């Protein structure tokens, strides 16, 4: 399964990619901002998106909305990994079409739990 990891922090991208490898997912693309991520997504092949919220130019929330509006983006799973913990933020993520939400700092088991939950839910749908 090909993942697209979107975060403006190179450190966080690397941690997420390493965490994915640790839980058995070693095919991951990286993007440092929403525009680059949309370009990568547009090229096809991305089956799962993990995105940060707080990014310059385009927030992760706007990126999620753009993906959902994309012809190929209606059903691709989106996991938001962020420090934003306010309830209104979490509700906004739901409205934007995000499939699950993980607060930083996270651990690889938590990441796996959320990915598995999304994939299970998608398979059942």
């Amino acid at each position, binding site marked *: 399964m090909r993942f697209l990891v979107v*975060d*403006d*922090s*190179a*450190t*966080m991208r*690397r*941690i997420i990619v*390493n*965490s994915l490898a*640790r839980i058995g997912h070693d095919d991951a693309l990286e993007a440092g901002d929403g525009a680059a991520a949309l370009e990568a997504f547009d090229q096809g092949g991305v089956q799962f998106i993990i995105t940060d*919220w*707080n*990014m*310059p130019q385009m*927030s992760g929330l706007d990126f999620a909305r753009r993906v959902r509006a994309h012809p190929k983006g209606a059903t691709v799973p989106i996991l938001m990994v*962020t*420090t*934003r*913990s*306010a*309830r209104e933020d*979490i*509700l906004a993520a*739901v409205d934007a079409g995000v*499939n*699950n*939400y*993980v*607060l*930083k*700092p*996270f*651990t*690889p088991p938590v990441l796996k739990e959320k990915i598995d*939950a999304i994939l299970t*839910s998608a398979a059942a749908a």
Partner: protein
Amino acid sequence: MPHEPGRPLPPQTHADVLHATDTALRLVNQAVADLGTPSSAAGSAGSLVASLTNSRQLAAMVLHANTQVAALLERIRVSRGLLASAREAQLAQMSSKFSAVTTATESAATSMIEGLERAIRVVEELEQGSAPDAPPERKARFAALREELFDVMNFIQFQDITSQQLSHASAVIDEAERRLADLASVMSGPAGVERATPATPPTPHPHYDADALADKAESQAFADALFDHR
């Protein structure tokens, strides 16, 4: 003593400026109040002597008020210089220092991750190179070491979280700088007078979380409950 812009004043000057400004305003206020108070002489219509006396008093008051207003304007000019020097010398530097800290810690964090990745590869090579009949305890120790290294890597998330806090602090400083610039601009007087340098406009969509270090357990539980029922 006039203040030269760009040169910091001694700490007690701030208090002096405030005190002198306050005194000047009180004197002006008193002078204006005196002008509005009818004197007994003024009530005597047709008294030439009283009129002349009043005229002299009025002229003296106007002169006094003018002196006080001039002093007040000088104090405002000094205050403006202080604001400009605080804005330029301290706030701008602080913001750029925060930015430098973020860059330096991100670079250090990346180096740490690279080191840990190399260490994990070494552990895996040692594990693969160990004898097939190695005792299970030895294999378990390799696995434990690898897990420890992964855990250390995971802790480096602190860099992203703290850099968001620094971004927030930097944004607050930028906003303070902008407001001080506006204030200095107002104190510069009408058009034609030197205007203060415009500061960076506020970021409409900040890309940091001011509460990045807040306790997340309750919020994660809220998110879990929300998404689990979808």
